[in-house]
């Protein structure tokens, strides 16, 4: 099982001939991801790493039955690329591009909702189902197949957390980087429900950060819908208000969106919040053992 990507994933890479696109294509391929096509307008007919390149996603999907797309195109073109993928008939789009204008994402997410196509990102590291498919820029070697589902608004912090889990012998079902932009695709609620429904996931790690109220909403959702144990971490406890901490979405506006509020929201619904990354595996183990006994 796992969620979203697995060995049935047939991946098309949009922007495959670009610097990042070609680099990560070879990384993903080396991990074992089934990459069936690439797209680069004007380069249709070429090959990258033995993968056929098409001019349009439609051509790629028609020729290869790709069902998932990952996007590495420059930010000004990313909104259009997302919609192109959805229109061409893939079921899941992962947009890695960073710096996509917010209104482009407003338009793209509305379109994908109408088409019933799922989106991860933009401005995200992608996702991985260890041992099956790596669809993103995550370093595959730190992941371990197992039963913890993880979702995060950040990239390298995710790696740090996963590393903590893996070195403590705790494997992962699927790890999803949902991205750090204000308007993004799948968010905590949808992923929480997918992990809840996934028989291979036994516990969930949620890594949040300052800005917005997604964590507060996730806490409420957990209270109402999630029976599996959840552990959380919030980055940005020391972030000053009014400053964008790297991610476009990581900003404390008018005193709301603080780490303190988010931590309080989780603790109020019984979700333990790690104060340091090293606490994560400890908390996960505790809860999983408790659940096993119950």
């Amino acid at each position, binding site marked *: 099982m796992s969620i979203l990507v697995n060995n049935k994933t047939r991946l098309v890479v949009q922007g495959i001939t670009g610097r*990042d696109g070609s*680099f990560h294509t070879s990384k993903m391929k080396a991990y074992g991801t089934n990459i069936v096509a690439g797209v680069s307008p004007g380069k249709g007919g070429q090959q990258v790493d033995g993968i056929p390149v098409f001019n349009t996603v439609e051509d790629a999907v028609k020729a290869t039955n790709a069902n998932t797309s990952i996007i590495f195109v420059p*930010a000004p073109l990313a909104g259009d690329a997302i919609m192109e993928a959805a229109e061409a008939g893939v079921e899941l789009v992962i947009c890695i591009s960073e710096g996509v204008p*917010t209104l482009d994402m407003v338009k793209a997410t509305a379109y994908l909702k109408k088409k019933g196509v799922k989106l991860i990102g933009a401005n995200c590291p992608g996702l991985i189902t260890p041992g099956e498919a790596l669809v993103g820029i995550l*370093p595959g070697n730190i992941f371990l197949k197992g039963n913890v589902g993880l979702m995060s608004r950040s*990239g390298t912090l995710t790696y740090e957390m996963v590393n903590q889990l893996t070195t403590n012998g705790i494997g992962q079902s699927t790890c999803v980087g949902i991205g750090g932009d204000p*308007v993004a695709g799948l968010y905590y609620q949808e992923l929480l429900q997918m992990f809840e429904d996934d028989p291979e996931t036994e516990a969930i790690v949620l890594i949040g950060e300052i800005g917005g109220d997604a964590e507060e909403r996730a806490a409420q959702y957990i209270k109402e819908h999630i029976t599996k144990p959840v552990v959380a*971490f919030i980055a940005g406890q020391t972030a000053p208000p009014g400053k964008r901490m*790297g991610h*476009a979405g990581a900003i404390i506006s008018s005193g709301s969106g603080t780490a303190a509020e988010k931590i309080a929201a989780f603790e109020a619904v019984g979700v333990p919040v790690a104060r340091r990354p090293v606490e994560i595996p400890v908390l996960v183990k505790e809860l999983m053992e408790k659940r096993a006994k119950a």
Partner: protein
Amino acid sequence: MKIHEYQAKEIFSRYAIPVTKEKVCYTVEEVVETASSFEMPVVVKAQVLVGGRGKAGGVKLARSVEEARTAGEQILGMDIKGLTVEKVLVAQGIKFNSEYYVGLTIDRNSKSVIFMASSEGGVEIEEVAKDNPNAIHKFVIDPDLGMTAFLARKIAFKLFNDFALVKQAVGMFQKLYQIFIDTDASLVEINPLVVTDDGQLLALDGKMNFDDNALFRQPAIEALNEPDEDEKKELEAKEKGLSYIRLDGTIGCMVNGAGLAMATMDLVKYFGGQPANFLDIGGSSSPQKVIDAMNLLLSDKNVKVVMINIFGGITRCDDVARGLVTALQQLNVDIPIVVRLSGTNARQGLEIIKEANLPVVNTMSEAAQEAIRLCAACQ
């Protein structure tokens, strides 16, 4: 990116949204000249890119040209939250009998632009949000439809009973949305929106912020940018692919990734240290980036120790290590450095670091604790 009130209102005017008769002035002489050409009273308002100018004494009513001169003298050059007032807006005083708030921003949950409206205008909307959240009406704008007449009317009926005002508001709200879209704004506010004594809606104050990610296609907006000293440094960093925010502490942090950078700061604080900055060197780091980042850290004289925390994904640890060694050769670094490298090519990176005789640690926790120890030692 933010712009001044007078700039926002110039944009409003271009879309035929009524604003006060007004002129921006850079000197007391200009203030006097402008006030002389206006009817009395006038209002003299500091133009600074920070909130709270009213409480700071940056807004004054003048009933005569002399009073306007005094106001100009007092406000020009004054300090508001660390920013010097370099220009004031001289605006025609207006008689009005009610104040409203209207604003547009991005809503993360609906993934749409939302319109906010409140009858409690003229005060900081954040305070209304805190004290009486029900007083703020919120309307999600379907991106496929934009601000339809029926939605604008629905909003207007929440604010006004007089249908003549509703009709004016419908046009104004549609224009505000168009401004938001046309300029890639992240915030458009009129506060207060007033009903003048002769029954006209008028934007007494205006505020606009913009989506930094969209500035590439908004050259006219980008041209209005007036970064302050800190922001200049941030922009400079940005041009080098670095995301930098200065703080008040002593431990300089260099991290790859925004989330990890925040978590690193948090950990420094957890162990009792004070981070000097947020610094994300980004995804695919070249050695040059590390050199630039080190330069940036060292330019802050408060920094007593540098803590480098890299988790290699795209970033290769050996690249970071090489950049660091080069930086140390080029720069005159007289403060201690703690390096933690994990992930892609960590082993190769650590070897390079060791050869350069730099202290190496294995975990974030160790790095933070070691940095704090070194910092205490050097003070």
